Each structure stands twice: as C-alpha cells, then as structure tokens.
C-alpha cells in the first residue's frame, strides 16, 4: 500500500491530468458500480465506462464469449443502455466520484458520433470522451471505421468539433500500419490516442462444428495479445505528437511497466479485471514499489525510457 513517500504517479496527457496512470478499459468495468465494493473508484487514475451509442442496443445473441489460450474472444455486440439512460441513470452515480470518468462512445455513422459528442459535452461529471472507432460503418456497408484513415479522420473531426472535452481516439489493431490511423486521428485533432482495441478472432467447436460465438467472429483480448499491443504502442509513440494510452493484455505491474517504458503515458486494464478484480490496485502499488526500489520519485522518469541497442 502507498505510504507517505514523496513518490508521484501523476501523469499529464495533454488536457487530462491523472493522479496515476492506471485506468480501467471500456467494457470491462461496467459503469464502475459493479466493482465498487472491491475497487474504490477514487483509487484509479481514470475510469472508462462501457461504450454508449445514441440509441440503446440489445447486442448479439449468446454465446458471446469464449476462452482461448491466454485470451478471450468476445462478441457482445456493443450492448448498451443508450445515451439517454446513461445520462439519466448512470451519470448521477458517476458524477460525484473523485475520479475522472471517460465516456467511450460509438456510432453507426459519422453523424452519430458527432451527435453523441455534442450531447455529452454539456454533461457534468465527464472528464473526457474516448472514441471507439472499431465499429462497423453502416453507411459503408459495415466496414470498420477504424481501419480506414479517411473515416478515422472524419469521425474524430466530427467529435472534435462538437466538444470541448478532452478527446481520446481508441485505435483498432486490425490494420496494416497503425501509425497511419494514428496520424489521421491526430490530424483531426484528437488530444490523446489509446490502443489497442481487441484483435479480430474466431473459435470453433470441433464436436458440433459450430462457431463458439453466435456472431462467428469476435474480439480477442487478454495476455495473449500483449506482445501485439506493446509493439503497436511503441510504433505509435515514435510518430505521435499526442500522448498515448497503452492497453492490451496487461495483467501485472510488469506488464504495465512495459507499456510505460516504451512510451505510453498511461495504461488501461481490461480483461484482467475479470480474473483478478484487485489487479488495478496491485498495479498502482507495484508502480510505487518499482520507483521506490530504484530511488526514483516520479513515474515520468520511467515513461519512454526504452533502451534500444
């Protein structure tokens, strides 16, 4: 546990200042209430809540998840209560919490992203918006927004122009060159980049010859994807002029440190919350211990210090 040492875990991500770099990832922590008995929200650097859309969405039929070696596939289908219920039912609980709340959002069209941003801009208790661009663009025949730099630019511009809140763009790993979409988001005015979202994957039941997910394809998360995530964060950090949040497969303080060392200013923990709900607290304490053991006082002395031979 933190003792009264002079150690500072504070990080600044452009307009966003966090008391520590440990956030929880969208879709893996509900609206914070679900884990509140075990993880006091105020301990966290920030909390990203489940992605919301303009209208409520019922999501995909089950089965929606499948466990794989070191990972899990999910195809929740973006089930969410929708903007109105979020503002009326969830925000009043979130608002008074002494933790920055980031709202993850997604739309079926560029316009929907813009509308969501505008609607949330006025709300109290929101510290920032995270744009989930790993969603099918209904106008472009279901193609994923996040894989086309032009669409990324449009979506981020639409959000940027409708809000004064800090804007985080969350990149999908399912692209040839993630620095291209990172640049597009940057050019459109994102304040921060976060990566990675899940990697598209699939599993089959060899006995029944049916897909394990009703949706056939789902998103792979968990420790299996950590090497992929870390590589992409490192690539983006090298070309990006805005701060980067790293995530994908983090389950321990060592994992978190790897992302910080390659240059992420903060990290998010997703799937690991399911396995070990106390993991974020352990990481926060572990970062302090790491600094203390090295006689360092500030987490920023670690960030971006990878020694490439």
């Amino acid at each position, binding site marked *: 546990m933190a003792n009264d040492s002079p150690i500072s875990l504070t990080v600044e991500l452009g307009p966003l200042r966090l008391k520590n770099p440990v956030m929880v990832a969208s879709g893996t922590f509900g609206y914070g209430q679900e884990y509140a008995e075990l993880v006091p929200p105020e301990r966290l650097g920030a909390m990203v809540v*489940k992605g919301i859309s303009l209208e409520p969405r019922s999501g995909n039929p*089950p089965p929606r998840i499948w466990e794989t070696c070191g990972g899990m596939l999910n195809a929740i289908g973006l089930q969410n209560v929708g903007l109105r219920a979020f503002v009326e039912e969830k925000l009043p609980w979130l608002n008074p919490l002494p933790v920055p709340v980031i709202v993850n959002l997604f739309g079926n069209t560029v316009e929907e992203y813009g509308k969501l941003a505008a609607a949330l801009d006025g709300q109290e208790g929101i510290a920032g918006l995270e744009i989930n661009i790993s969603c099918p663009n209904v106008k472009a025949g279901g193609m994923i927004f996040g894989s086309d730099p032009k669409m990324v630019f449009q979506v981020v511009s639409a959000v940027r122009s409708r809000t004064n809140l800090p804007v985080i763009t969350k990149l999908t790993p399912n692209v040839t060159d993630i620095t291209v979409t990172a640049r597009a988001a940057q050019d459109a005015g994102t304040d921060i980049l976060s990566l990675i979202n899940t990697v598209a994957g699939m599993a089959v039941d060899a006995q029944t010859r049916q897909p394990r997910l009703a949706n056939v394809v789902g998103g792979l998360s968990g420790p299996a994807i950590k090497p992929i995530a870390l590589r992409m964060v490192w690539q983006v950090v090298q070309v990006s002029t805005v701060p980067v949040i790293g995530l994908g497969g983090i389950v321990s303080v060592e994992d978190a440190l790897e992302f910080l060392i390659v240059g992420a200013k903060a990290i998010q923990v997703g799937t690991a919350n399911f396995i070990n709900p106390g993991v974020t607290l352990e990481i926060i304490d572990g970062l302090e211990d790491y600094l203390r053991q090295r006689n360092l006082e500030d987490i920023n002395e670690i960030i971006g210090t990878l020694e490439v031979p």
Partner: protein
Amino acid sequence: MLLRNAKILFNNPVSLELYHMALVCPDIAATIQPGQFLMVRIQDRLDPLLRRPFAVHRLYPNDPPGSFEMLYKVVGRGTQLLSNMLAGDSVNLLGPLGRGFRLPEEKGSVLMVAGGIGIAPLPYLAETIAASGCKGPSVLWFGGKNSADLVCVQHFNDLGFTVQLVTEDGSEGRKGLVTGHLEQWLTQQNELPGVIYSCGPYPMQRSVAEMAARLGISSQLSMEALMGCGVGACLSCSLRCRPPEGTQEPHYANVCQDGPVFDGEEIVWDESSS
C-alpha cells in the same frame, strides 16, 4: 461481494466425474444465499484464464465454522485442474454473486427438479427451506444419464423429501427423461406444488418452465451461461428474456446479475439447446 482465498478442507471424488470440495471462508459462508454462486479462480495461472462459476452445494456453519461444500462435475480443463487440487491448497473466490432462489412464500408444498449436475445448488436450498420452518410435503425429481449421476439422495430423504429418480439408461429409478415422468406425475396429483425450483440442462429447464406455465405453477430456474466477469460488468452471460413493455428488440438479461435464478415466465426460450 468479497474476494477471498479459501483453503480446501477436502476434495473427494463422489463418482467418476463428480467431486465434493469443502472450503473454509467464513465471511462468504456468512452471507451467501441458496442459488447464489461464486466465481472460482482455479489457480494462480493464466491458462485457463477466466474464473469458473459454481454454486454452494451445502453450508456447514459450524464444522468447522464458515465452511461450505461445492459439488462439481469434471467437464473440461478448469474442472479437471480443480479435481487435482489437494486439501490444504487454496482457491480464490469472488462472491457471493447473483440473485438466488426466493424462499416459498406460503408454507405450501415444494417441488424441486434436478438434471445431472443441476443437483448442485439444491441441497443448500432444501436445508434453508427446512430451517425456515416449511412443513409442507416436499418432492425432488432427479434425473441423470445413469445411476452414477444420482448423488446425495439420502440427504434429501433425511430432510423429509420424497425422492423420485429417473435415469436415461434405466440403471436406477424410472427410465427416460425426468421431464416426461414428472409431467405424468404432476397431472396425477390432487394438489399442485406451490413452486417449482429447477436446475439442469437448458432443454430440461425449458420443459419445466413450459410445464409450470401450463399448470399455472410458478417456477424458479437456475440458469447457466458462459461468464466473463460474474458481476455484471462484461455483458457476456446473456439470456434472452421478455422485453420490457412496449419494446420490440430482443432483451438480454445478465445471468450473473439478474440471475442465475429466473422466473420461468421471464425467459424467452431458444430453439437451439445451447
């Protein structure tokens, strides 16, 4: 909701595939209700990655204090690993989770239906009902593939239950599916039970719910789903339920949070048997 390491008191095979595992965890034992469940982390490892959901089978408040038992079936990697654990080892528990069974309101008669490992949560429920002073006649209909599935019957006898056994291969009790015999039996009763509690495979649960609806009996079904978190955070454990008035879209409840026990009438049954 608590997160606790719990020591294993014993982990004994009951039959080829079934194990009794007793654990000590006083503060979970003090609060968990029949039908609620625990998410168990099998070991301090990342493969298998996710926790596994299990019910409390029996509670032993005093022997030693704060201990309870799970009954589990070895079906895959996680339960295989669980079965290799030894007395003195620990597992990590997250719980109590979910909404359990509601106790019968009037002191009427109680019917329980179990299919295979679906027996797991029922002894704790039966004991709780017995302890609550319910005096009505109680019946358990218990079906399995064969006689090896039909465990802890004596315990229900001791609690005053009439136990009706059914096996698919006829190796014990009546031969066939439990739901077939149950329906026949129900139609022959003068007085219908006040409530049906049921736990078992999806097709059985469906039959029970439809039978209960036809006969106008309320049913409480403990349902299963693949689970990521167990606490309502990940939305993976969906069960299709009746949508709120006025909406058309399919409505999915979270088994982990809105259940695992559902009223039979809430559920929209699926053609597939997943």
